[in-house]
């Protein structure tokens, strides 16, 4: 798209700045701190070429990466070789309107912002602070160049098919791994996570996947053999004797192969379109934010931080779970997801073995269905999902179901239970009063449906059980120096929390499988791990994407996803480092991880 001809109307207000130079328009949501604002504006105005998107992508990425949280929110819209490049950071939204559809790209809920290259064309592109009304297109104002005050902007272009970049038609979508049909109807009931995200929920997964491909594929074309060799060397370096071998993880890693054979390849194939050139992508952008197109699935070409033994704990490079196979580099998507496998319906019950327990996301069959007015979300008769209770009475219903009272007169089928009138048979068992004085050992007993795991630890002088490596009690902060010699066995306290970028926080008192539909994992089905459901509108998360496995006092992140991958942020090199599929990393407190486009931080008070 040629943005140089577009008409730019700043929206009234003086809170932020609008800056235009060549083929780029920048909106900065705030005018303070002045130094950061000036850096942003200078970065953009230094470019005068008609299509600065690609260069600006790199420069802004490093600017964002060096941000110490003072950088104001901003939005960049720039012409690029593949169409329009958009980068949003902070509490800012960009809306792109074309004849067929509208897109919203929001920087809310991401660490390092979101960037996308879209083929366009778009007739109007607006930028504003998140939550504010999008600026209206104005036809009697046109800022041609320079910087002015404003609270957003509307950019209107001539939209004609001639304006469309040639590249847009050249996008190659891998034929077999592209999601075909059914993605939109995967979840029968509305998914609250999707519904609440105003960001880009309107983008079908396949479209999003298709749009991403220029960004992934392009750098690959520029990758020289020498660079690839460097990557291989870096990977080989991980096998050096001083690299920490994660033996507990290694011991069980093979079980994932079974899992994958059983469920993952077929399950992931239809929904997670892998990048077209998985093995060779090597972007020249050193910093790839978590919300980005997944960072190139190869470790940094030069000086991988992973083998730095002297690094401080937080900056300590990830430790791979076991010796690296060469699979991550050479693996083609087809290997992990056979193209010949027919994409099964995403609803597991349709194909699951008889002992399958219905996943939580599947709507429970209503207690009664009025023949006249079936609820809209109820499965249609042709749906192969059967009522599991009807077909498998012996193997299901692990818990007694609550009494139901059907109330006629409602609009649809529902189950209900009056809470006001309880008869004695109906009463849950009486509980004991909460203790007034909690035993210190009890305080940290996980308050969840998890089995107690006994580990070796030390007890602080106030009675809290701790990691033997601790110098201070993680509960009360008292020095542990006197106690470190006496090992006792006790129930393991939670090892920390995973905080996702939307604030969802999970206490690590149990193993978890993280994913879009973690119930499909054998570990979850067998009760060995809790499901930690996360999703994003673009479905960059696999059904079972990663595992958080607690081994003694450590949290291991195991990447289960061969498609969009799992990454850890390496402070030393300021890069996202991919975890090879099936391998694991020991998380250090404060470590950031990215799963597909979602990201999270591991927080722990268990500081050693």
């Amino acid at each position: 798209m040629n943005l140089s001809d577009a008409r730019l109307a700043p929206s009234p207000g003086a809170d932020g700045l609008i800056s235009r130079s060549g083929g780029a328009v920048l909106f900065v949501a705030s005018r303070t701190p002045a130094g950061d604002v000036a850096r942003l504006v200078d970065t953009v105005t230094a470019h005068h070429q008609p299509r600065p998107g690609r260069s600006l992508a790199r420069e802004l990425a490093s600017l964002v990466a060096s941000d110490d949280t003072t950088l104001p929110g901003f939005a960049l819209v720039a012409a690029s070789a593949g169409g329009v490049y958009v980068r949003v950071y902070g509490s800012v939204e960009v809306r792109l309107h074309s004849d067929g559809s509208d897109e919203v790209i929001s920087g809310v809920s991401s660490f390092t912002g979101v960037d996308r290259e879209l083929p366009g064309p778009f007739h109007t592109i607006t930028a504003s602070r998140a939550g504010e009304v999008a600026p209206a297109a104005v036809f009697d104002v046109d800022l041609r160049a320079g910087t002015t005050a404003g609270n957003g902007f509307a950019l209107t272009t001539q939209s004609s098919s001639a304006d469309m970049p040639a590249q847009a038609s050249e996008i190659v979508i891998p034929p077999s791994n592209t999601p075909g049909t059914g993605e939109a109807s995967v979840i029968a009931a509305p998914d609250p996570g999707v519904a609440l995200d105003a960001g880009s929920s309107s983008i079908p997964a396949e479209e999003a996947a298709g749009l991403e491909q220029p960004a992934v594929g392009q750098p690959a074309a520029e990758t020289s053999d020498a660079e690839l060799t460097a990557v291989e060397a870096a990977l080989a370096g991980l096998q050096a004797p001083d690299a920490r071998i994660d033996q507990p993880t290694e011991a069980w890693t093979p079980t994932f192969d079974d899992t994958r054979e059983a469920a993952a390849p077929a399950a992931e194939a239809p929904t997670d379109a892998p990048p077209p050139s998985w093995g060779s992508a090597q972007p020249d952008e050193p910093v790839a934010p978590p919300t980005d197109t997944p960072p190139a699935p190869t470790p940094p070409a030069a000086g991988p931080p992973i083998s730095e033994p002297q690094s401080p704990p937080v900056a300590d490079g990830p430790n791979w779970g076991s010796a690296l196979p060469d699979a991550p580099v050479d693996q083609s998507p087809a290997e992990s997801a056979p193209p010949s496998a027919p994409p099964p319906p995403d609803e597991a019950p349709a194909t699951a073995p008889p002992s399958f327990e219905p996943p939580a996301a599947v709507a429970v069959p209503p207690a009664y269905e009025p023949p006249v007015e079936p609820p809209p979300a109820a499965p249609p008769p042709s749906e192969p999902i059967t009522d599991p209770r009807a077909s498998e009475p012996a193997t299901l219903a692990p818990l007694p179901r609550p009494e139901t009272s059907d109330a006629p007169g409602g609009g649809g089928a529902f189950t209900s239970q009056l809470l006001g009138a309880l008869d004695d048979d109906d009463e849950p068992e009486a509980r004991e009063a909460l203790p007034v004085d909690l035993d210190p050992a009890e305080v940290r007993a996980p308050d969840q449906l998890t089995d107690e795991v006994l580990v070796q630890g030390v007890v602080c002088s106030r009675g809290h059980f701790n990691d033997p490596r601790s110098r201070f009690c993680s509960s009360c902060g008292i020095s542990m120096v006197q106690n470190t010699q006496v090992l006792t066995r006790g129930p393991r306290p939670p090892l920390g929390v995973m905080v996702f970028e939307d604030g969802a926080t999970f206490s690590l008192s149990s193993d978890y499988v993280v994913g879009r539909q973690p119930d499909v994992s054998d570990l979850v089905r067998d009760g060995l791990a809790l499901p930690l459901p996360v999703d994003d509108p673009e479905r960059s998360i696999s059904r079972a994407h990663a595992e958080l496995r607690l081994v003694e006092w450590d949290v291991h992140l195991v990447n289960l996803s061969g498609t969009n991958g799992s990454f850890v942020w390496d402070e030393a090199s300021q890069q996202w480092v991919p975890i090879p599929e099936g391998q694991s990393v020991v998380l250090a407190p404060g470590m950031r991880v990215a799963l597909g486009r979602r990201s999270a931080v591991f927080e722990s008070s268990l500081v050693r």
Partner: protein
Amino acid sequence: MDRIADYQLLEALGGGSNGQYYVATTPARLGIAADKVAVKVLQVTAGEDTFHRLTRELRTFAKVRSSHLVTLYDAGQESGHCYYAMEYCPLGSLARPAQELSRDETIGAVADAARAAHDLHEAGIAHRDIKPANVLLTEGGAKLSDLGLVQVLAPGQTITGLGAIGSVEYLDPAIMRGERASRATDIWALGVTLHRVLTGSGVYGELPERDPLLAVRRVLSSPPTLDERLSDAEAELIRRCFDKDPSARFATAADLAGALDALRSAS
């Protein structure tokens, strides 16, 4: 959304943890006099097990006899969407009172919430989600509402994402770390609630709403601080809700309610 089960939803009351509140017309089957009830529709779609855990938790709550707990009427699900109905309190909550409250009324409302918490504790239940928005105002005093259900809906999760960040401020960081909810964690939340309603500010300053990660990190890493505008007696009382030394804290929520009553009559 204008209907769930046989409830006609009249007006959205706003979001709470895990779901949305609505005012709804009372279905005749409830057999109650009030013509309106409050209905909370949960964001999660729940399977059978989750629904079972949910109703079990709600029934345990409903069984607690306390004049300071909202009355629950009905729990159910339609197409996997869980809801529950409770008494509607048109006077609003401590977070958004329908009319301005005096300092004494404010302290009295928190005292009522503390009494409700105590009644729950004696019945073996920790509330887990005490905050101004869950202290509802009625003619006959305040009532505590909306049991924290996140651990029921998503085992292991300690904070729901998506808009629940307002609750982080009130949560004892120990819960966030996965420790057991207890009398102490609810007393902590009551202290932060009192601080918020007396001063209009939180004990961590203003948490960045747009950056939940930073908000969670701040709560986990920084001790609560008290606003200088509080009187010495107020500050002392709030401090005793989260003193670093557990033995200096209120042992029970009833003790806290007593101290609040004294604080009210003292001034």
